[in-house]
């Protein structure tokens, strides 16, 4: 035993190269870019403008190609203290000053993105009172001892200065796989689509985001609101001693568009969209009640294409909202999520029931003659979920409550293609469906002696 005590301590210190590798592996490339946009948004959240457009005047510019990645914003920048003590630390030390309702809370986003993209990065930032710059050659840094990044003299220019506070990040010497993807149109389209959707609320609030010179607008969600059909809404508040309050607002309703890809749950944390049109069991689809084995919520099917659910969590303390560290999913273990989830499922059921009724009505009357379908598709008003009341019950007309024309039944049958083609030509109609309808009408007329 004494021999072991005499030898030097066993080293468990991670090598920087290993650390960098581990850090960059657990996030998809596109999410790493969104993380950097999140940091810009947090900058704007520190000094919001009064009124309905809190981000009016703020902008973020992203440029990416095979050679380099660059993101610049005018969202206030951050000071040397923040840079020295927090911004470049891996993980967020206790006592870090927090931005209220921030979306970049994990203290890894920027570093992870920088290392993920390439082997050389420069970060420059200016607040209204100070400026600083950091320049890191990652390969060199990995080979040196110590965990410091070197300061570099700040060179002011027309984009960033104390009278134009903001931050610029440039990554060069891109990793091969990253460089090739940045250069493809498909990747650029993907990023544009994700930003439009995931940062929808901030763009609607006035933030201007551009990607490779193209301005990105927000993808909006609309619900149907009209006499007799109104969305359900509820607000839950989670307060615990010594912890920041979390509010969860839930909205369920019927969407304007019958496109199945837009259907499902949208989960938003502090304004940042985490899940879009989610149709997995995580958000309640295909939920089977264990004991009786009765189905509470069916698995997603196209007849639910108009289902829209939006749940928005907000808290000053961003660690309290139920998202995972990569902001790609919810944290299912969070008590806030679990309690909200139970309410989501309750609120989902009447909408699902209504959509089942709608489906049955279409089956009985066909799409052309279904009174219920007619009700929801004519003179509907598109409403943004933000403008709905905080608490209300979902209301929809019952089947049969709307009377329209005589009762009909759908006929479906099969015949040989050659025969249908023959009749199509003979009757001068353009589809098999039309052949069926026309022949029926002709026979009916003849039999009735009209």
């Amino acid at each position, binding site marked *: 035993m004494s021999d072991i005590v005499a030898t030097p301590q066993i080293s468990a210190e991670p090598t920087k190269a290993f650390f960098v590798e581990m850090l960059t592996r657990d996030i998809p490339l596109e999410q790493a870019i969104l993380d950097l946009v999140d940091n810009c948004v947090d900058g704007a959240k520190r000094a919001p403008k009064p009124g309905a457009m809190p981000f009016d005047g703020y902008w973020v510019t992203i440029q990416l190609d095979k050679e380099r990645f660059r993101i610049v914003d005018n969202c206030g920048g951050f000071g040397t203290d923040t840079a020295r003590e927090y911004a470049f630390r891996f993980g967020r030390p206790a006592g870090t000053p927090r931005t209220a309702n921030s979306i970049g809370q994990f203290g890894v986003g920027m570093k992870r993105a920088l290392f993920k993209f390439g082997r050389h990065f420069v970060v420059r930032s200016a607040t209204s009172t100070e400026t600083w710059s950091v320049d890191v050659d990652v390969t060199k840094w990995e080979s040196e001892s110590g965990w410091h990044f070197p300061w570099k003299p700040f060179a002011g220019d027309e984009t960033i200065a104390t009278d134009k506070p903001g931050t610029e990040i440039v990554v060069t010497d891109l990793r*091969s796989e990253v*460089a090739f993807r940045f250069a493809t*149109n*498909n990747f650029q*389209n993907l990023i544009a689509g994700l930003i439009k959707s995931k940062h929808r609320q901030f763009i609607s609030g006035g933030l201007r985001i551009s990607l490779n010179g193209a301005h990105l607008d927000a993808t909006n969600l609309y619900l149907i609101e009209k006499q007799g059909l109104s969305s359900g809404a509820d607000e839950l508040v989670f307060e615990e001693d010594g912890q920041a309050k979390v509010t969860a607002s839930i909205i369920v309703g019927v969407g304007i568009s019958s496109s199945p890809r837009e259907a499902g749950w949208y989960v938003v944390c502090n304004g940042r969209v985490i899940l879009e049109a989610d149709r997995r069991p995580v958000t309640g689809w295909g939920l089977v009640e264990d004991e009786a084995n009765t189905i509470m919520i069916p698995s997603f099917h196209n007849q639910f294409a108009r289902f829209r659910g939006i749940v928005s969590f907000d808290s000053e303390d961003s660690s309290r909202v139920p998202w995972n560290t990569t902001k790609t999913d919810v944290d299912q273990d969070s008590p806030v999520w679990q309690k909200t989830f139970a309410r989501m499922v309750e609120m989902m059921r009447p909408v699902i029931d209504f959509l089942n009724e709608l489906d049955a009505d279409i089956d009985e009357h066909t*799409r052309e003659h279904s009174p219920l379908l007619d009700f929801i598709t004519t003179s509907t008003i598109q409403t943004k979920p933000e403008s709905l009341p905080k608490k209300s019950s979902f209301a929809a007309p019952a089947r049969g409550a709307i009377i329209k024309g005589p009762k009909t039944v759908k006929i479906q049958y099969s015949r040989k293609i050659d025969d249908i083609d023959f009749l199509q030509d003979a009757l001068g109609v353009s589809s098999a469906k039309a052949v069926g309808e026309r022949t029926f009408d002709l026979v009916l007329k003849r039999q009735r002696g009209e």
Partner: protein
Amino acid sequence: MTASFRRIDYSLRPAKYAERRMLSEVFRRLRPFQPVEEYLYVGFGSVWFSDFILFHKALGIRDMISIEQAGKAAPRIIANKPFRIHIDFRSSSKVLPELDWKRRQFLWLDYDDPLSPAMLLDARTVAGNATSGTVVALSVQCMRSPDVTAAELDDDPNGPPALVRFRQRFGRERVPQEVQEDDLMGWPYGTVSRAMLVAEIAAALAVRNSNGKPDEMKFKTICEFEYEDGAKMTTLLGIFYRDSDVTTLEQCGFDKLEFLAPGGRPVRIPVPKLTTREFRSLESQLPLKDGAELELGEIPAAEAKFFAEMYRYLPNFAVIES
């Protein structure tokens, strides 16, 4: 791949005929990479095999594979097969991954239908496997996107508009940001279809090249065609090459092809509407002597111009008898 041969006799389609002849000129120029007769030709032969016959006779290509998903028409296709062509009665999605990609090939994926996600996946398979010197032509119909029709036929006035359907069908990463609804019809739709094919190929090459090794595989568009024998069609034609083969590529001299349109614009293949007499009158003056002008007589100038540009490629029977 619908069995359009039931409706159209490929060999009577004059613009398609001209395109085939132009492709043959392109293939002929591949010699710096390898004697063309040693290339493998892969096409969708239908029952006509017009491309196979031309490439065999004009270029001496020996190894040819026809991909044909015709089901019940198989016996008829076999009965019409010229030469010793290998016919693979499976879908292109099954056949393409199994081709011998170590060999140089030219592939003409001549779809009858408008661009679909499955065609993009075919393009991806080709780009993911092609060896340097392989040429691919991708032809798609571009009358109007099926999404436009679907949006029109939707009983629901609030159903998704055509562009939304189009984006959802292909996925947001595949559809260029600037595409508008009127880009889904006619020649602009052809432009979008080709751009999406090029982007898909670029995306596949990005994956392929991201191994950190030098000597990247690249794709260069040789030319693009637009033509119309009843239905508007467009073709993207390009070559895969490694950085180390740039000189070989230059030796092919694709930029010297006679039929190329100025400024890299798509080659629009017109079908001149001329009588037999007009046809002969023009033909006797061609090729034009330097500085000479065509004697038109009563021939419309535009038709004569089309003819003078394309006569080498047009079939002799492209005559409108009145």
